[in-house]
């Protein structure tokens, strides 16, 4: 019997799969899932890449997995402190390969809203703000985001506010992972790349607020033994899984 692929594990694993050999990959504040994804990639994949994070760490060897994705433990055993100004400049000068950036709403072009629900000037919900997004999304070579809720509230036809968008080189988020699907940008729009084997294309489409091309989609490849083992090692007692409020 195959172990079920929990929404949490699906998210972390598919975020990790965006990491590529020899590249520079970044995770920031408020980003526990990308942090876990980068740590999973380091453990599970048989290639080298540079992992930098908002704690200043460069390929750190944290003694524990912190709740806060900006925790100083993420710089343990780092041989350098590559701090905020440095990694932002790295990104704006075009040397950041992959950025994980948060989003509240995502539209079909891969743009994001992290600012407000409702009118910005009279918000129904004031959101955290985009952090690095407005500067990093247009300048990083690729950016990926995630949502723990796959719904027409989060994947929308029209953003309430465009916090971050794509730059001259690309159209927005390269990849989006939800508890049931993985989207990849086709240069014009986000297209369905794969769906959780326990769901269907129809369900993904019906729960997505923007029109989505599914013509090249396929069921997501199940987690490898190495991916499962890595995630188990990172979250042995399931604390992160419990803390991640997923609406799937």
């Amino acid at each position: 019997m195959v172990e079920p692929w929990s929404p949490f594990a699906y998210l972390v694993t598919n975020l990790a799969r965006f990491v590529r050999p020899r590249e520079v990959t970044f995770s920031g504040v408020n980003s526990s899932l990308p942090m876990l994804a980068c740590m999973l990639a380091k453990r599970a994949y048989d290639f080298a890449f540079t992992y930098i994070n908002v704690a200043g760490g460069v390929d750190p060897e944290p003694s524990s997995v912190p709740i806060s994705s900006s925790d100083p433990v993420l710089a343990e055993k780092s041989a350098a402190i590559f701090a905020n100004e440095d990694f932002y400049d790295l990104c704006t000068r075009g040397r950041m390969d992959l950025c994980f950036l948060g989003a509240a709403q995502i539209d079909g072009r891969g743009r994001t809203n992290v600012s407000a629900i409702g009118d910005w000037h009279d918000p129904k919900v004031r959101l955290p703000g985009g952090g690095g997004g407005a500067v990093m999304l247009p300048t990083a070579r690729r950016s990926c985001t995630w949502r723990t809720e796959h719904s027409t509230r989060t994947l929308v036809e029209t953003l309430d506010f465009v916090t971050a968008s794509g730059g001259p080189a690309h159209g927005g988020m390269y990849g989006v992972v939800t508890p049931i699907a993985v989207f990849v940008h086709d240069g014009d729009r986000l297209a369905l790349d794969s769906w959780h084997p326990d769901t269907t294309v129809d369900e993904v489409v019906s729960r997505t607020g923007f029109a989505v091309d599914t013509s090249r989609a396929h069921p997501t490849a199940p987690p490898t033994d190495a991916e499962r083992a890595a995630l188990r090692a990172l979250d042995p007692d399931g604390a992160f899984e419990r803390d991640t409020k997923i609406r799937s």
Partner: protein
Amino acid sequence: MTGTFVSLSELAARVKDGDSIALGGSFLHRGPFALVRELIRQGRTDLEIIKQSPGYDIDALCRAGAVGRARTGIVAMEGNFGLAPYYRKAIETKAAELEEHACATLTAGLRAAAFGVPFQPVGGLDGSALPELNGWARIDDPYGSGRGAYVIPAITPDYAIIHAPEVSPNGDVRVLGTPHWDRIMTRAAKKVLVVAERVAPLESFQERPEITLVPGFMVDAVAVVPGGAWPGSCFPDYEIDYPAVERYLTDTDEAFAAHLAAAPEAEEAVRG
């Protein structure tokens, strides 16, 4: 030169109603939280808070009605706590005004101030609604590259206020691990105030001067407050006190009062 050491209450008293203050650290890490609480105790109002990623600090200040304006990139409690509830309420009710930045645009404004120029170009922002919202100008490259850049006006805080594990007797400031945004804040602000865990021997600074983040001559005053970054972390001394953050988030006046009373500096604050 000898550093100016004062009590926490005296340090806070330098900040006046309506001043703009850049707060060091990020989210729950190495923020000048003892000073923030002391500003609340002293009843400060109409402060302008400048910080790329505030959380507990701006939330507590909003809860106390001390904030007039926020210039921020991302605001959250982080960890598992989500949004900063009192900040959110202050913005939604328009009790406080928000100038929404990307973290790097706030840094650009601080860089303009630090570099002594009126504006600073910044990369990115393509397609974002933030430039129009904030009235940021786009300037074409006068050298004909065909590229342009948005420029951010200089942001000059009245004070940069940072928390550090160690200061020297001369007020030199040492930080271990990431400096977050503290470096550019201390260069951009008119004055620099420091809350430190402890005074370390001058010799330890002289042995590794490369680590010193702010030389003493740039520092206006220092207050030594062990545990002052509580309930946040101060690397390498202590980690986040998550239960204390959770208690802070209890939505009653009593809980907030109890939180302020439980802070490490509370005894001194009562004395002061």
